[in-house]
């Protein structure tokens, strides 16, 4: 075990930090600390411009292999990239679904044609993706997909019908990857296909979901005879679950450390508030602030272990618990923030419903313990996969 980064890595840290300091200025300065979860609906055009700026600097897709146009950074350097990005307060990435999910899926499962058609737009920060995964009746029961894909021999295209939900940035995206049922007789995770669908077509309708915060960054997406070219299915009909699960794997990884740096920014704001308004003298608040600080430190150690792991030979239990851990921690931070505000927590910035950052944090973090597998589902997964306990009984 060693904690220090190599001199080369520290050199790299200086490089990205310097680039960000030089470029996150002028028109982009207003984007600092904006566009993260709970704020993703803000400044979409400006953040798209920022994506192009990043691409110019070679700072998109830093973890992708060089052969597909990525920067091919080591794990350590990716960690550093995400940490510095967040430390600088660089804005929430409009491209993160393309870069973190769609791209890696295509790299792993896509055809050569698909790669050459879709990867460049992601790399250049010019084409954006959203995820068509959850459905209203599915929730945590991911495989309960009702959206249908029928191959129309006449047009030689797939026709997609159904509804997806909790799709963030749908109205800002060029493409959506969608799981749909190719075999109408099939059930659960069999008979699914993984489709790449153009958003700008008559068969696709996006409807924003008004959230607890009064804002909308999630959407419902309706597919009514939406079209998808024959060559825009990833893998074979019936492979959809396998492709999607591979994709889920990409959701966890080095970006967790960037997430944590964003959490650190939030925690810093909470600490500052407590010092400013005197709550830092309250012994109970002190305990909770310390606990939040400790929890975040441990989150980082756990991620470092996660990233370094595997050689250890053991099942990566520290990875299995990660979602439950950070989601709960983040939700607790939201509660702590408003409890430090005290009665002031109820007073908004402006009518009709303009929240300050900490109020927004408080409300938005309630979704953390729900999306991507509720805390309850996470506990099932941990018990079943991590501890070999029996699966849930199914009704007869």
């Amino acid at each position, binding site marked *: 075990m060693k904690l220090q980064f190599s001199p080369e890595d520290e050199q790299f840290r200086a490089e990205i930090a310097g680039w960000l300091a030089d470029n996150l200025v002028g028109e982009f300065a207003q984007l600092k600390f904006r566009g993260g979860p709970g704020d993703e609906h803000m400044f979409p055009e400006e953040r798209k411009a920022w994506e192009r700026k990043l691409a110019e600097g070679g700072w998109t897709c830093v973890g992708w292999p060089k052969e597909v146009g990525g920067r091919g950074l080591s794990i350590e350097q990716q960690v550093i990239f995400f940490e510095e990005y967040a430390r600088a307060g660089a804005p929430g990435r409009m491209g993160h679904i393309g870069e973190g999910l769609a791209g890696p899926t295509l790299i792993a499962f896509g055809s050569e044609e698909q790669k050459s058609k879709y990867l460049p737009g992601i790399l250049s920060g010019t084409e954006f993706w959203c995820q068509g995964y959850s459905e209203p009746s599915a929730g945590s029961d991911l495989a309960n997909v009702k959206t249908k894909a029928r191959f129309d021999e006449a047009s030689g295209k797939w026709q997609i019908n159904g509804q997806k939900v909790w799709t963030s940035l749908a109205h800002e995206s060029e493409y959506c990857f969608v799981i749909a049922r190719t075999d109408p007789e099939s059930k659960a995770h069999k008979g699914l296909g993984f489709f790449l669908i153009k958003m700008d077509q008559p068969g696709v309708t996006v409807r924003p979901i008004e959230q*607890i915060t009064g804002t909308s960054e999630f959407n419902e997406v309706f597919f009514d005879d939406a079209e998808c070219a024959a060559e825009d299915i990833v893998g074979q009909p019936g492979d959809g679950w396998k492709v999607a699960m591979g994709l889920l794997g990409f959701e966890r990884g080095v970006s967790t450390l960037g997430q944590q740096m964003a959490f650190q920014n939030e925690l810093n704001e909470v600490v500052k508030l407590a010092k400013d308004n005197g709550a830092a003298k309250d012994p109970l608040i002190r305990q909770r602030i310390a606990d939040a600080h400790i929890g975040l430190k441990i989150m980082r150690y756990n991620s470092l272990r996660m990233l370094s792991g595997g050689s250890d030979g053991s099942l990566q239990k520290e990875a299995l618990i990660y979602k439950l851990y950070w989601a709960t921690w983040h939700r607790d931070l939201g509660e702590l923030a408003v409890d430090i505000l*005290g009665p002031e927590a109820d007073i908004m910035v402006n009518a009709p419903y303009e*929240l300050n950052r900490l109020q927004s944090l408080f409300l938005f973090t309630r979704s953390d313990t729900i999306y991507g597998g509720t805390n309850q589902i996470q506990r099932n997964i941990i018990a079943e996969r991590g501890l070999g306990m029996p699966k849930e009984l199914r009704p007869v």
Partner: protein
Amino acid sequence: MDFAFTEEQQMIRDTAAAFLKASSSSAAVRAAMVSDKGFDPALWQSICADMYWQALHIPEQYGGMGLGYVELVAVLEQMGRYLLCAPYMSSVAMATNALLVAGTDAQKALYLPQIIEGKIASLAFNSASRDWDACAVSVTYRRDGNDFILNGNYRYVLDGDNADVMVFAARDEGSVGENGISLFVCPTDLNGIERAALPTMDQTRRQATITVTNLRLDESTVMGDVGKADKHLNKILDLATIALAAEQAGGMQEVLDMSVEYSKSRSQFGRTIAGFQAIKHKAADMMLRGEVARSAVYYAACIADEALNDGPLANELSEAASIAKSHCSEAYFKNAGEALQIHGGVGFTWEYDVHLYFKRAKASEHFLGGSGYHRERVAKMLLD
């Protein structure tokens, strides 16, 4: 000893539930909370003219019904349950209690009938302090002949911008802590009173800030002894605290009911989620917290009656208020949080009502002091 609602109290409770279920429906709440005043004046008039709720615990000599705090709490519980948007907490649990506790006969005779007729009244006493008792008073007064000149700023004044009548707490210039506190009651159309609504995250209850600038009040506005109103103010706040806890208990019931109902309708993995132990056990804990909340609130209501009537248990008031509020604050917020969790994604939408309760729960937790604050009050009684 009989610690159950009488038949009459049950009837009051059931009538309140039925009335509010119809008149404070989700649609009605959503319309009221974004309206200009934050409540429906027609409904408020109906509450006063048809239900007599403003008159509930006002003595008959002032035109009230002369009932007790148990009856009041029974109604407040249902208001919390149905999230009634109305200046009831301010007018009845704060201003009326202030008049009952500290008002002169003349003040009672003047203002109580106005409240019974639907005038809005409230209490202003604190600004940015983390305390919720007489020590929190920061607005000052000085004597000018027989008059009092008030200066300073109030915050977190429930329905302060809508109020027709205000009770103001202020302290003698230079005084600190519990010393030098006086209470005044006056109409809000005097010179020197400036009011502004504060936009609130919990839209179902309005708050305001009130600035008093050289507000001149004559002797007739003084409630009780000049400079010695700290005990009165604390008693008023304890009474208000019990009222708020009753609302919280009602809210707890509703988020439980919503969650159980939703869980029975939502299927996952081929069965309703109500069948999963994780959900059942959350609901069971919610019910436990809700039931004991009620026990704490009803007991506190009995004690409030004792306090209002100088009964033998009157000195338990602060403890009973802190017991009820410390339990209900955490419990309501926990229950509302669990309700969001049980509802999953839809609980996170504006469309479903859970978030209205969730926000009310947090705002009510902070208002008049959270669980930690009230536990420390109890600790002082026990340990110091």
